[in-house]
């Protein structure tokens, strides 16, 4: 067992883990943050995407110990403390971009990073390519693409304030 200290959704935690403990296991099993999901074992579905120091990362393909000292944001930490949804969450709801909800946390976290890293704007094609690492079986992606396009101006307007 080794110790890892990391900040998750603004709160610092020191946790005992094994060498093999994955970041997603730490989040789900040690911290009870079950919003981050595991949908595959080959790093392809993206249900486990979280932000590490602001960047989208597959938490199933990351050892917990690699995240020592890191700042992690999960789906549970995206909305404001008073429950106000992040614009991306709001647009997913507005555009019916989720059905069963299982891929949704990873999809939203990927989408937030995608929009943040493209302040200049995103074409529909770029959005679709940006979702390369996230599988959804319910929606056919159509409304997810619409939601992300709609969130882009909202997020950048908010950032400019």
């Amino acid at each position: 067992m080794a110790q890892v200290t990391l900040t998750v959704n603004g709160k610092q935690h020191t946790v005992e883990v094994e060498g093999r403990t994955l970041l997603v296991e730490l989040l789900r099993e040690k911290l009870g943050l079950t919003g981050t999901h595991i949908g595959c074992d080959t790093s392809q579905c993206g249900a486990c995407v979280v932000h590490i120091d602001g960047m989208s990362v597959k938490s199933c393909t990351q050892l917990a110990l690699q995240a020592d000292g890191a700042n992690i944001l999960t789906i549970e930490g995206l909305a404001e403390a008073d429950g106000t949804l992040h614009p991306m969450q709001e647009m997913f709801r507005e555009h019916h971009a989720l059905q069963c909800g299982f891929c949704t946390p990873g999809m939203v976290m990927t989408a937030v990073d995608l929009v943040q890293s493209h302040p200049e704007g995103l074409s529909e094609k770029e959005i679709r390519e940006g979702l390369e690492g996230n599988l959804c079986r319910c929606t056919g992606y159509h409304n997810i693409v619409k939601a992300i396009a709609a969130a882009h101006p909202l997020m950048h307007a908010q950032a400019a304030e």
Partner: protein
Amino acid sequence: MYDFAYQKPGSLADAVSVLSGDMEAKALAGGQTFIPVLKQRLNKPSTVVDLAGLGLSGITVSGDVITIGAMTRHADIASNADIKAKIPGLAHQASLIGDEAVRHRGTMGGSLANNDPAACYPSALLALGGTIKTDRRTIAADDFFQGMFTTALDQGEIITSIDLPIPEKSAYEKFRNPASRYAIVGVFVAKFASGVRLAITGASQGGVFRHTEMEKALSANFAPDAIAGIVTPADGLNGDIHASAEYRAHLIGVISKRAVAKAA
């Protein structure tokens, strides 16, 4: 996965020492291939040595060479202004590896050391005629790749950086596996004053290789038409449920022409 000890050495010497002293120890770079392998229990290391603390990332230009630290992430290579300007084929290639989340973690050194026959970077290194620098020596690209998942690296030897000569023109084209999105055929073409080098990944049972017949034709005339008549034999190419060896042989011709058209 099986349990293992985790170490994150603060110096190259320490990392080499751990890896050299324990045949069962394995180096961890970005982990985007290695961790899935561990999860499938296909590898049982005693110790995983995380190379993230060695200060091996960064991109520098000096003269006609770009040096990329072994732990530089794909995303940083894809977005680096110097690489985009000087070796656009490499920036484009990096942007096609895995997906954005994978590109945030995966590293060039890790990918080269693994030498997956369907990985993208081996084609860039080979086509650019780059040089691998390790903790103990330099290895020319032509000597580095030794068949699928096999390289010239010794046990415990760590790639520290990669030197890539800046070509006049470069391009990468990738025909993706519809499931895994790895390369079924990936072609990197680089045009230098001294001639053209063209390397193909994904297609051969032996891993990445240079297509010398195309190189010769392109060195004489750097245009898609110059290689239009070149037929690549299917012997020795991979065949699987996604693409037969014959299809791969055909794709080598098509994708190479597209790479040249893009670079020209």
